Each structure stands twice: as structure tokens, then as C-alpha cells.
């Protein structure tokens, strides 16, 4: 899936300040997201990245716009400067967010080689079509 496909989706997402160390500045949350379907109730509302002791650390904030607890699955693809993956596929992680709540996910890169990332995110309930 190409990220550019999701440009439209990106616009609908709240933009937040990304303090992003390497390599490029001023990226949108959307450019770091690989959504599989358009989440009906869930949104990535904040995304921060920094490097600690050579390892990249992410803080992802997910918001539930619904009143019911909603489920999603997520994982991170770790890339190097050139966009090559530097780590094998992570396991998909299940996630439950309570109604009208925000949840922070913290994750650290497995290897210092990771300098960039993509968050793969799939909500259990998606809007009918994203196209």
C-alpha cells in the first residue's frame, strides 16, 4: 500500500507537532501511517518520535470518538534512511480503547539501525470504503 493513496485520509486527521529527529522535518502524521481501511471511530491524534541512547522511541496517541470501547490492531515497520526495512515484521498487537478515551502507545525501536518508521493501523470497524 502506498502512503500517497492515503493523502485524502491524512487531511481528515488532526495534525500535530512532530518533534522528529532524523531524517526529514515537517512530516505529517498521515505520512507515517499505513491505514488499512478508514477507521470509523478511532483516530491517531498525536505522534511523537525521539531518539534515546541511539534507539528511536515513539509515542502514539489514539483517540476513540465513540462511546463504546473499540478495538484495533497495530504494529510498527522500522526503516532506515533509505526507506528499507531494518527489522522483521512485528507481531500485530491488539488494542482496546475505552469509550471517548485517549490511549498512548509507547514503543521503542528494536535496533539503532532504525531511523524511520511507519505505523500500520487497522481498526476493527472501518467506514465502508476509503475510495
Amino acid at each position, binding site marked *: 500500500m502506498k502512503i500517497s493513496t492515503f493523502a485524502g485520509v491524512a487531511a481528515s486527521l488532526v495534525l500535530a507537532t512532530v518533534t522528529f529527529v532524523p531524517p526529514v522535518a515537517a512530516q505529517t502524521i498521515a505520512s507515517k501511517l499505513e491505514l488499512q481501511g478508514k477507521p470509523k471511530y478511532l483516530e491517531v491524534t498525536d505522534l511523537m518520535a525521539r531518539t534515546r*541512547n*541511539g534507539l528511536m522511541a515513539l509515542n502514539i496517541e489514539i483517540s476513540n470518538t465513540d462511546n463504546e470501547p473499540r478495538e484495533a490492531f497495530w504494529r510498527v515497520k522500522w526503516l532506515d534512511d533509505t526507506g528499507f526495512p531494518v527489522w*522483521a515484521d512485528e507481531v*500485530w498487537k491488539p488494542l482496546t480503547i475505552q469509550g471517548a478515551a485517549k490511549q498512548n502507545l509507547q514503543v521503542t525501536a*528494536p*535496533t539503532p539501525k532504525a531511523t524511520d518508521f511507519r505505523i500500520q493501523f487497522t481498526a476493527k470497524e472501518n467506514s465502508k470504503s476509503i475510495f
Partner: protein
Amino acid sequence: MTLTSPTTRLAVLSASLLLSACATVTSPTVGNNVSYGDAKAVEQVNEKFGSTDLQMIAEAMARSLAESQAGARIKPTVTIAEVKNKTSEYIDTRSITDSIRVQLLKSGTMRFVTDIAGMQDQTDELNRQSQSGLYKKSASAKLGKMEGAKYRIEGNITSIVKTGGNLKDVYYKFSLIMTDVEGGTIEWADEKEIRKTAKR
């Protein structure tokens, strides 16, 4: 049947045309009764300890450990002792510690010395190379050079299972600690919790 008769030839020709034109490319498979799934997919078959739990625990623990040692100038030597299974489920904890070790080795943050389970084979091989007299001196392992572990990692997994009505709730806690072998101090500890709820 010969290919001489015009009708036959036509039939063969059309058949071959048909094949080249319409047949779809087949995948390199034998039979189609089995399908290969995504090994990283979230397994939700039942509330028992499963592959996703194993992978999530190993990942969380390996990341946390790597983070604790990131930035260290010398990669510490570590050995993984046993992770005790305190549940009454048949959980192969060695499979979890194997995954943790693989991830830490790949990340390049730690070095592992032979653990207790592998010690027998290691000492056998070492004795054979150094003492049997069969090997070239210059290219065989010498005694007294094995490295001791700076840290020892051990832990346990516990569970709380509750059933009420048509609900079954399972809570797993996997805790790991890393002890400085020389000083006996606990240098790192972390735990991963998993809650699963199943409806009957």
C-alpha cells in the same frame, strides 16, 4: 488419432490457442486444501495462551531489555536462566526466552553466553577440541577462555483465570528480572500483562 486430418488439426490449434489466451497463470502450489496464514496475525481462537501472547511478550521484553542497555559502550554478556511456569497451562517458556534472545542478538545490544541447557554440549565440544589431541593447535578452541555472564535473566509467568456465567477472563503476567551475577543486584526488571476475555 493423427494430426493429419484438417478437423483434428483445427481442434488442436484452437485448443492450444485457448490455453495460451484464456488460461490464467497458476501459482506454484500443489493442492489447495491448506492455506498459509500470517504468522504475525492476532490469534483469537480461544482464551488459552497462544502465539500472539508469546510474540507480544517476547517483543515487549526484548525491547525493554535492549533499551536498558542501549548506549552502553561494552555489550554486556548475559545468560538466560529458567522462566518458571506458575500457571497450570502447558506453556513452553523456553520458546519465549528463545524468542527474546533472538531479538536481542539481532538488535546487537547484548551478547549471550551458553545457558545451562546448552552447557553440556559446549563443554563437551571444548574438551574435545582442546584435549583430544586430534585438532590443529593453532585452530582449536582453548580451555579457560569461556566468558562468564555479567547478568543473569530469569523470571516467571503467572495467570489468574476466572469464569462467571458465559464469560471467561484470563490474565497473564510475565515478569523478568536481570541480576548482576557478581554484585547480586537486580539491574533491570519489567513485566508484561495480557488480559483476554472469552465469551462462551
